[in-house]
């Protein structure tokens, strides 16, 4: 059958059809669809604009990350999701041409305020990167480095405890407890990424930012990291940038969709993946060219 039968039932050509979603808005005065604000915000961004030189990478984004929630940020390459993530712990400061305008608060405190110590900020808002990047040091030293520079341990025994707890929380302890003096770079990719997570949580951060943490990992290592994210959210607030939509759907409670520097839609993850309200979100998550 096919088209003939479809026509018998009055089918119209497919090109004539569209979804029950918001039409494309294409101007500066756009409005994010959905609810960007939450009651128990751990971090809140208001009217954030980020520029690389003349080019504007983030346009007037306002978004909260709730305490102990996993927020995923999705969108096509170059949509600004990573830029936004990096502005949450002032990682963009190291790029000379990058300017951040707007207000970003951690527990109600302006992280771009004049008295803000970025080293302390990054201890409170940790980061895990796309490519596992352990220091060229032993597994033990990789985890101990942060607590040491922040003076979190006062004795060898205390440091040993921090290292063990962090590795346990990163589900890596059982695999490395007998080889702690071996170089971290000798571990497998998945283990290295979990080592980086252990390193990030060793300084007891409050927020963990993850920039495509599984894109260099195999499915099993990915599943372990996702399982870990689920456990970590009991203690930490997590924002994750991912290109895997299934991953966003699996690990996060809220999802934000970015497009060309704008926060197009944000909402409950289930809603975003079953009934997105904006056509651009729909097109992206269903793989349409739109």
């Amino acid at each position, binding site marked *: *059958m*096919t*088209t003939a*039968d*479809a026509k*018998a*039932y*009055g*089918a*119209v050509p*497919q*090109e*004539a*059809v*569209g*979804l*029950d979603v918001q*039409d494309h808005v294409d101007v500066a005065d756009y409005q994010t669809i959905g609810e960007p604000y939450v009651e128990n915000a751990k971090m809140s961004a208001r009217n954030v604009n980020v520029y690389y030189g003349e080019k504007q990478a983030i346009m007037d984004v306002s978004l909260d990350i709730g305490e102990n929630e996993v927020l995923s940020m999705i969108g096509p390459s170059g949509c600004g999701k990573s830029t936004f993530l990096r502005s949450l712990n002032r990682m963009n400061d190291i790029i000379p041409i990058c300017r951040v305008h707007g207000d970003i608060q951690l527990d109600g405190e302006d992280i771009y305020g004049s008295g803000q110590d970025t080293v302390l900020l990054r201890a409170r808002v940790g980061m895990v990167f796309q490519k596992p990047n352990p220091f060229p040091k032993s597994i033990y030293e990789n985890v101990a480095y942060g607590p040491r520079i922040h003076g979190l341990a006062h004795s060898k025994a205390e440091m040993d405890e921090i290292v063990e707890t962090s590795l346990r929380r990163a589900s890596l302890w059982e695999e490395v407890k007998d080889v702690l003096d071996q170089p971290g770079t000798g571990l497998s990719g998945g283990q290295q990424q979990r080592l980086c997570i252990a390193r990030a949580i060793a300084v007891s951060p409050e927020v963990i930012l993850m920039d495509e943490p599984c894109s260099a990992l195999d499915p099993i290592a990915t599943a372990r990291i996702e399982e870990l994210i689920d456990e970590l959210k009991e203690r930490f607030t997590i924002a994750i940038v991912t290109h895997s*939509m*299934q991953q966003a*759907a699996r690990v996060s409670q809220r999802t934000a969709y970015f497009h060309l520097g704008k926060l197009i839609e944000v909402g409950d993850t289930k809603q975003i*993946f*079953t*009934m*997105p309200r904006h056509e651009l*979100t*729909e*097109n992206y*998550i*269903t*793989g*349409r*060219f*739109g």
Partner: protein
Amino acid sequence: MDDNLHLDQHTSQKYNQELEDIRARVLEMGGLVEGQCRKALKALVKLDLDMAEEVASSDHKVNAMEVDINARCTDILALRQPAASDLRVVVAIIRMAADLERIGDEAEKIGRLVKTLADGRDRTTFRSETKHLGKSAIDILHGSLDAFARMDVAAAIETAAKDPDIDNEFEALTRLSITHMMEEPASVKSLLRVNWCARALERIGDHAVNICEEVVFLVKGSDVRHLSLKEIQERFL
């Protein structure tokens, strides 16, 4: 804003084809089932034994189509991980295929009952009274498939709104049969059989209403299966 699905606009052309394919197949199945219903009704009204036999023995085609459509939908779920409207298309088609298969079963049941009616000696029953009931049920079925093909929510709701008439008609027919059974106990057996046929036609209407509800789910994203007609009309018309 129009209410249809851009099934042909995926980056992957093959994915476009797969979705278009299940949509086309479920419509083909709908056409086959509708044909079975028409034949079953004709067999009942005209007491046509040959046609009854044909309907009673060709349900396997409908069953095979349901299995085929389900397998294709499972493949899409496994290989494409559809989201949003694509996911709703696949889920709605799985459920529609199940409803169509059940409609096929009802048509087959009528075919089998007509065969026993034709065998019996007493032919003074209410067969012709079922004609209008059957036509209404098939109209709803046709309307539901039409609304699906066009992704037309208004048409789907309008079609579903006709079902209460069928229910009333079935009730009236049942009352009439009971009266006759009391007056003429010898006719009970055949009257019961005709009433079972009427019941099958009424069920066909119910399954068609389910298909209408799938159209609303597909386009609007809301599961309206357990809402009253009034609530559905208020929300979506």
